[in-house]
């Protein structure tokens, strides 16, 4: 840390001052700005002391990727180029991170799926790459509309997975995310997800930190594995992998290696709590009915709570900020008095509800829904309707078929 501390207060080539991240995020003045989510990604990157950004176009992240190209032209990013495909991009990100760079990329939907082989490799190689995932539909027939199914595939890669609700979350978490994922006891990639279009293409007021302050640079010498070295793992592992050796030692080493990745996810818990002020946010925790959600489903849940209050139904809210590390104890504590737990989601399978069912006692309390997918919006009224139906209250149909 001494090397990092020594640059605090000095300036980079753009005249930005390397600033203690805690002070920058929590004490520096903020300027309200009216931006799209894509523009917010650009503004966060301006302050991230990022060495390499690698881009490939896929809706709805293309605009953010292009805007970061402008940052490169302005001199804020060390290097920037377009890969040949998402798979190539993620492989090139790995190469850059192996070399000791702070790396950033963005992807979405089928791009995430196409690149999937790389994500467990990133985690296994302990590469603290940050990847923005602007979620969209992944299945045929193709859709570019919001859908969070791809997050389910990321949950077991060994990456940290956070789910932003708003553009403000996005701005703050991009910067804080590097602080967590670059800790030497963590040192894992971060998939920072949001619901595409809802966050990326809508404008919101976002409070930005001063543009003349930036994160301290990444220090690769704190890495838990050596930087690029063709004679040492993890590079050597890829040339001479354990899988090529059929003996007990190889299996045991690989098993221990896998355990270490998930141990690092666990270690991120302490740092994530520190930087995000907890893994979950809660409201009205004395209520019998609790909505547990992540991403923009939280916003819709909040509005549903307001509508229900008008009808005399009190309802609580749990906003899940980190999916990995999974806030198991926090969710259990927050829902311990709930008689009904509702999990609204923007995907067809209900992966969040499954996680919550596996977490809380008396899991029959968990109502997996409402679900929308394929780009449908989630009017708060359908959450209200789901809750009222479960409570045996009279409700109306939103589909216009009469009630």
């Amino acid at each position, binding site marked *: 840390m001494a090397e990092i501390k020594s640059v605090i207060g000095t300036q980079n080539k753009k005249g930005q001052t390397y600033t203690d991240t805690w002070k920058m995020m929590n004490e520096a003045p903020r300027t309200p700005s009216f931006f799209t989510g894509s523009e917010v990604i650009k503004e966060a990157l301006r302050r991230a002391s990022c060495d390499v950004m690698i881009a490939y176009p896929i809706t709805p992240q293309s605009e953010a990727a292009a805007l970061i190209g402008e940052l490169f032209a302005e001199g804020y990013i060390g290097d920037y180029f377009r890969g040949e495909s998402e798979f190539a991009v993620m492989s090139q990100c790995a190469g850059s991170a192996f070399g000791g760079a702070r790396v950033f990329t963005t992807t979405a939907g089928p791009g995430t799926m196409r690149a999937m082989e790389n994500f467990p490799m990133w985690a296994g190689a302990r590469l603290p790459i940050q990847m923005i995932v602007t979620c969209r539909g992944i299945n045929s027939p193709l859709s570019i509309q919001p859908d969070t199914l791809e997050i389910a595939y990321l949950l077991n890669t060994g990456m940290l997975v956070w789910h932003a609700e708003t553009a403000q979350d996005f701005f703050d978490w991009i910067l804080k995310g590097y602080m967590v994922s670059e800790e030497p*006891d963590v040192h894992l990639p971060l998939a920072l997800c949001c619901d595409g279009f809802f966050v990326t293409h809508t404008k919101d007021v976002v409070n930005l930190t001063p543009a003349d302050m930036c994160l301290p640079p990444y220090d690769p010498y704190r890495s838990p594995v050596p930087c690029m070295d063709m004679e040492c793992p993890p590079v050597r592992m890829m040339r001479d992998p354990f899988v090529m050796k059929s003996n007990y030692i190889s299996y045991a080493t690989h098993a221990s290696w896998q355990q270490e990745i998930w*141990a690092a996810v666990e270690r991120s818990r302490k740092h994530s709590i520190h930087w995000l002020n907890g893994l979950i946010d809660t409201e009205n925790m004395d209520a019998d009915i609790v909505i547990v959600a992540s991403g923009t489903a939280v916003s819709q849940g909040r509005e549903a709570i307001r509508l229900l209050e008008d009808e005399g139904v009190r309802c609580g809210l749990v906003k899940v900020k980190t999916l990995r590390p999974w806030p198991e104890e926090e969710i259990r504590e927050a829902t311990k008095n709930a008689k009904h737990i509702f999990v609204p989601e923007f995907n067809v399978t209900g992966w969040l509800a499954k996680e919550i069912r596996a977490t809380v006692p008396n899991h029959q309390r968990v109502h997996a829904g409402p679900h929308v997918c394929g780009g449908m919006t989630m009017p708060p009224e359908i959450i209200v309707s789901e809750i009222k139906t479960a409570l045996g209250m009279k409700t109306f149909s939103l589909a216009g078929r009469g009630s």
Partner: protein
Amino acid sequence: MSDYRVLPGPEHFLPPAAASMGIRLPNPGEAHINGVIVSEEAAYEEAARQFLMAKVPTIFPGPLVLWAWNEKAAKKATAIRHLFNTLKECVQPGQKPMLIPMPDYRPKYPKINPEIEINPNHPNLTIWHNKIDCCVFIGVHCHQANLSLKIIRGGTSCYTIAMCAQAGHEDAMLSIRDTSVEKIMRLADTIKRLKGTVQPRQASA
């Protein structure tokens, strides 16, 4: 707080990572023993005691302190040599301190020479061969140290200590974090101070 305790093995066919069992790393200024957070002072005392009790107390210096690849590494290597010399001066007849490097992390095929090195992919071979019953890792990259510590806990009864330059190691039985030259010297001083007050144990690995 977790009920799990990080104890000498052999623990299991595949022992769990201590972090996955709820063991948390110490904050700056703290250390841990068996997964319980303690003061650094208590950790120095216990580390010294374990070394003086062991039949084959062994130091495993890793690549971060070998090869004199920068000035700090060279200074740490000198301090580690001082620690080893102190250990040799303080043990009783019948005890056999060793200094065995972990020069790199390549799996050694077809077989490691356990008399001259240790490797994170099969550290148990070096522990078994030399009957090492207490060891300290210094200057090993954190990921590789944790690989080793879990495998040692799984298949041997060796007491493991990790002096880490970063955040510490919950997979060791005892860990000190933010290790500097001064902290290595402090451990040597503690061993010297406890000389003659601790009886060596008879058991072997």
